[in-house]
């Protein structure tokens, strides 16, 4: 049994991450510097926050394709509330985040009340939320935010980027909830066998509703950090972010069929992807080449997982 434990997905992934880091560090001497690593942490925060909630979503056997659109919609609303409606910026931020969270809540309602498969429900809201962002903004961007607002995306606390603290705390909270609480166990039970979970008295629908709402909240939080980091809002913000988040989660060992997965795995998946992106860029691979690598890594990781599963299942 010890051998089986040693070869857990997370252990393999951790080893893989370390190897990737060593290789990348040897390819470019700029890679393994504190400055570069902290900067990469900054870039990782937005997709990281979304991946945390996505882990819960996928553990229940669902998926949330609308997170990138929720991010875009929240960003646009933030700008419109502040600039066009003249609300004070803190109020605009709060209100926009409430709207983003509500968008996630709507996903949950569609999925639980009408039993629409999550894939289709969030595909529809992917179009709807992005469409709202485009319609409301009419392709105009909002700039000129006050200086203090840039703290969320560019500031530092004790030498570490602000959003890396947020991501770290959020990761700890998510890990505790998924690993140690009754809610976490309900999440696993729902994904492993929804009918059995229902018969065991687990409030499956309530759990799902919470999780999709949390997914909206994380996307909204990421939106604020994103806007603060790039100092402007545009309606196409966060396009394709769902792919990055799903890749991190699945690479982290969460089964796309639900019932299995950990937050630590997701965190490792995130770090590996960001290291690959950054390392490849530093060693001269163009930005679009790294998208290809991520796609290959995603398919490869799941393929390996599926083969392992088959052997284990016998």
């Amino acid at each position, binding site marked *: 049994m010890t051998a089986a434990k040693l070869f857990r997905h997370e252990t393999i992934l951790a080893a893989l991450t370390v190897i990737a880091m060593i290789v990348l560090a040897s390819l470019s001497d700029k890679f393994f510097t504190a400055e570069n690593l902290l900067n990469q942490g900054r870039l990782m925060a937005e997709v990281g926050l979304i991946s945390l909630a996505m882990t819960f979503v996928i553990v229940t056997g669902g*998926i949330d394709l609308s997170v990138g659109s929720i991010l875009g919609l929240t960003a646009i609303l933030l700008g419109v509330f502040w600039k066009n409606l003249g609300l004070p910026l803190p109020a605009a931020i709060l209100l926009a985040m409430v709207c983003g969270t509500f968008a996630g809540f709507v996903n949950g309602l*569609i999925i639980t009340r*009408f*039993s*629409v*498969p999550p*894939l*289709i*429900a969030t*595909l*529809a*809201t*992917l*179009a*709807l*939320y*992005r*469409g*709202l962002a*485009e*319609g409301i*903004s*009419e*392709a105009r961007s909002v700039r000129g935010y006050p200086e203090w607002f840039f703290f969320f995306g560019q500031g530092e606390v004790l030498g570490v980027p602000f959003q890396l603290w947020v991501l770290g705390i959020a990761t700890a909270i998510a890990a505790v909830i998924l690993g140690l609480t009754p809610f976490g166990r309900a999440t696993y039970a729902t994904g492993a066998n929804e009918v059995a979970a229902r018969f065991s008295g687990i409030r499956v629908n309530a759990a799902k509703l919470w999780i999709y709402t949390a997914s909206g909240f994380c996307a909204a939080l990421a939106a604020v950090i994103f806007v603060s980091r790039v100092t402007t809002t545009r309606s196409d913000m966060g396009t394709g972010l769902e*792919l990055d988040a*799903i*890749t991190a989660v*699945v690479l982290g060992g969460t089964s*796309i*069929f639900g019932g299995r997965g950990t937050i630590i795995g997701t965190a490792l998946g995130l770090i590996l992807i960001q290291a690959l992106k950054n390392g490849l860029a530093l060693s001269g691979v*163009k930005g*679009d*080449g*790294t*998208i*290809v*690598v*991520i*796609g*290959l890594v*995603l*398919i490869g990781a*799941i*393929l390996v997982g*599926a*083969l392992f599963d088959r052997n284990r299942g016998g």
Partner: protein
Amino acid sequence: MSGAAFSPGRSNLQRFLSGYGQEIVVLLSIAALFAVVGAVNPRFLSDTNINSIFAGNAYIAIAAIGMSMIIMAGHIDVSVGALIGVIATIAGTLAVKGYPIWMAWSVPIIFAIAVNAAVGTLVAYTRIPSIVVTLGMLSILKGGLISATQGEWITNMPAEFMIAQMRPFGIPSAVWFMVALTIIAALFLRYTDFGRSIYAVGGNMEAARAAGINPERTVIGVFALHGLFAGIAGILFATQLQVIQSTVPPNLELTIITASVIGGVSILGGTGTVIGSTLAAILFACIGSALIFLNVSAYWLRAVLGLMILATVLADMVRRRRDK
């Protein structure tokens, strides 16, 4: 193929309506849209506009035929937009480089069939959900396309390459393709063993296996067929304008999936027709054009699409619950 169509004690009209309800709704919506928008702004009914609605969007309808089959079989493909972009770029490059025109048309289509057959094989034999495989394929195709072309546009394509702009008997060839392929696909789905096995696999994979169908082979076949339709769509897309932008057309996959779903293909697999998806693709094109003629900002188009998918899907779920 809905169960209600075979229940006894109903008039022929009722049976017809329940079998083709969604198609009729879409057709009536198109007619209503033409009547209303035409009344408000008669230029909507001009030859040029009608031509651009049908010819300019035929490739979406054709890709939606393949997508409908994929969804009927219980799968999905989110990489089709990227694939169409890649096909268009390969075709344009071959044509500009001076390869024979038949090669510029056929090589990309064969490429599309091969890519999708590979996706289908992965999906069928490893049981990895098609959403994950095609998400991965999306990023491979998209990244590959941008890094290969560096976003450069393709121009100066030879005139005989531009198949979408040809007009046999005065009607754009893209429209001929759309009509012919829709009819062929509809007949194929209804009257061939393979066509019917697609419905069977989508309805209930294990039951299909028990009935002697090889579900794995069916899934690979459906993906390959979808590749064929995407390939043809890509060639039409490449040849309808004088330039190929060498990028992935934004949200093309979404429009294609939406056309299939609104055309009556159930998202749970097992039912639907390709006539419906073609009509739905035309309906979208009309809506997009109508927004412009009604002076509504085109920026709202995607929100309208999203609402339409949502409404159709919710209606589908409610109907299923009632049927139970």
